[in-house]
């Protein structure tokens, strides 16, 4: 049908944002910033998100968005391969594609990518953990969410590869929490029971971090077992402050959201945009948290 190489109408004032998941603080922060920027520039922004971080539903949403013909779609692809075909279709229909947070493997579809290097984030987590642990030898555990979740898989991979460079730290098999805090808590408790020499835990996202922090504090091990979390949601920041978490790997969702909209508008107008930007990741610890407060995620717009 409408697969012809559609031209983007430079006067199109409609934008769409499809984040990776409903109600994740990271994405909420992107959304807030994006809304603000769009409003400032006089653009309409339709924000949508799948219920879970899964490609099938996201691709369905994308279909609906394409049908309604915005000038550009800003998206965090939940799968770097599966979303290629529907995004190609969007492009063919004259919709500019802007990638935020994650990116497709195929670089020819989007006009620009503001993507986080989750693998590097995992490496950063490992370095931070090693630093926190110091020279104490022992076991470390990584908690992934669900196998096949691209973001957390890469974080876990980066973490595993980096930890391998620290011979004192023995990496336990990475466990999967199904993204349930209760499961995460249980895994951490059991690991503690079985490995009294556990010295560090890396939780690849919010829910796993929540469960891990609870299990550790319940066992009276907060601060003894170092916990590195991912994302600086308000809750995680609180936990960092009160010592339940020792470090957070934070992204900059506010900037991603704002910049994503700017680039989308530029692309619609046919202005040149930078093809590739790796967004920064930063390790926040209790010591430096006051300097890094600009990285804390928003809880409401």
């Amino acid at each position, binding site marked *: 049908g409408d697969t012809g190489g559609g031209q983007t109408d430079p006067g199109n004032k409609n934008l769409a944002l499809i984040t990776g998941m409903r109600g994740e603080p990271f994405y909420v922060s992107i959304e807030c910033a994006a809304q603000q920027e769009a409003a400032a520039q006089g653009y309409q922004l339709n924000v949508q998100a799948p219920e879970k971080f899964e490609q*099938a539903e996201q691709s369905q949403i994308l279909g609906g968005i394409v049908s309604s013909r915005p000038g550009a779609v800003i998206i965090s692809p939940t799968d770097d391969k*599966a979303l290629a*075909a529907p995004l190609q279709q969007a492009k063919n229909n004259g919709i500019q594609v802007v990638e935020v947070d994650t990116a497709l493997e195929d670089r020819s579809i989007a006009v620009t990518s503001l993507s986080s290097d989750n693998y590097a984030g995992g490496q950063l987590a490992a370095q931070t953990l090693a630093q926190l642990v110091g020279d104490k030898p022992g076991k470390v555990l990584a908690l992934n969410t669900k196998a*096949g979740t691209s973001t957390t898989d890469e974080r876990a991979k980066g973490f595993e590869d980096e930890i391998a460079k620290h011979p004192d730290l023995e990496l336990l098999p990475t466990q999967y929490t199904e993204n349930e805090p209760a499961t995460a808590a249980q895994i951490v408790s059991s690991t503690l029971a079985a490995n009294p020499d556990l010295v560090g835990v890396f939780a690849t996202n919010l829910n796993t971090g929540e469960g891990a922090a609870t299990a550790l504090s319940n066992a009276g091990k907060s601060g003894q077992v170092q916990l590195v979390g991912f994302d600086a949601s308000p809750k995680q920041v609180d936990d960092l402050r009160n010592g339940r978490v020792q470090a957070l790997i934070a992204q900059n969702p506010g900037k991603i959201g704002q910049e994503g909209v700017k680039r989308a508008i530029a692309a619609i107008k046919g202005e040149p945009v930078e093809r590739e930007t790796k967004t920064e990741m930063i390790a926040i610890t209790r010591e430096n948290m006051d300097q890094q407060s600009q990285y804390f995620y928003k809880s409401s717009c």
Partner: protein
Amino acid sequence: MPTQQGSQKSEVDTLTPEKGLGARLAGSNTLWTGLVLVGLCVLFSVLRPDAFPTLFNAQNLLVQAAPLLMLAVGMTFVIITSGIDLSVGSVLVFSGVVSAMTMEGLSGGDATGAGWGVIAIGLVVALAGGAVWGVLNGVLVAVARVPALIVTLGSFGAALGAAQLLTNGIDVRTVPSALRTTLGTGTSFGVVPNLVILAAVVTLLAIWLLHTTAFGRYTYAIGSNAEAARRSGIKVTRHLVAVYTLTGLLAGLAGFMSLAYFGTTTISGHSNDNLNAIAAVVLGGTSLFGGVGTVLGSVIGVFIPAVLDAGFVMAGVRPFWQPIAVGAVLVAAVWLDQRRRKARNSR
């Protein structure tokens, strides 16, 4: 029949006229649900006349619903026997994984350029991969008599675990591009996506199987009263194994379709497929207690949520409101049907 007697035939016949299509439709359990579907399409067409009633949207809706439709068709058979199958999403993933790995293996690591021979083998492997889990489910349900919920919850975890073991949790990502461009994104007759044609053909076959053959009749009989079916000489165990196998087979097909469409195995993306398929079937008027139901109802049941999702996105409904609205529509659709149903004595 050994003994027959023709005398009173005419009298009895006048008592039992064949019902007309109108009456049968009006008496059907899915009339209102079907009307709700039509109503939703009209509503969204009015709200977004530029976006909803377009060829692109129609294609997109149909294509994306195709794998779930296969799961729901299989689930219809299972639920009519008063069983349930929670494993379909994982079996879909498993089948996709073994199929993709086989095609990769046969192409020396990268299946992108593979030809039709390899693709055919991939299809067979996907179907067989699904059928194996179906047989396992069926045997545990029918022979070992473990409740279907427990069996298929077990295989839900196990099939996904097996897929993860095979791939080490990382999606297989090379899929023959010949497969992707024909089955995945190709169209026939100018506008009809091939994936939709395949799904429609399978659905029609399933309608035929359920509503006109002995296989279908036994499916209803077992769900209605398994003991009566057994005493009537129906091989209940064998039939149940066949029904679960059919469902596994269709999940395998869905896995292959998903592979063709997305071009990758989507290991993490199918944890809700089981509930979605079951909801579609029940929405379509099939009773969880077995004995009644239609494939057509399940088709309607697949498309109501799909249309809602698409419509809400187009109408710009805020994401957090969507599940609330979807819930309300689902309940309302069934409630409309329910109001007309008379309380039957039995059960």
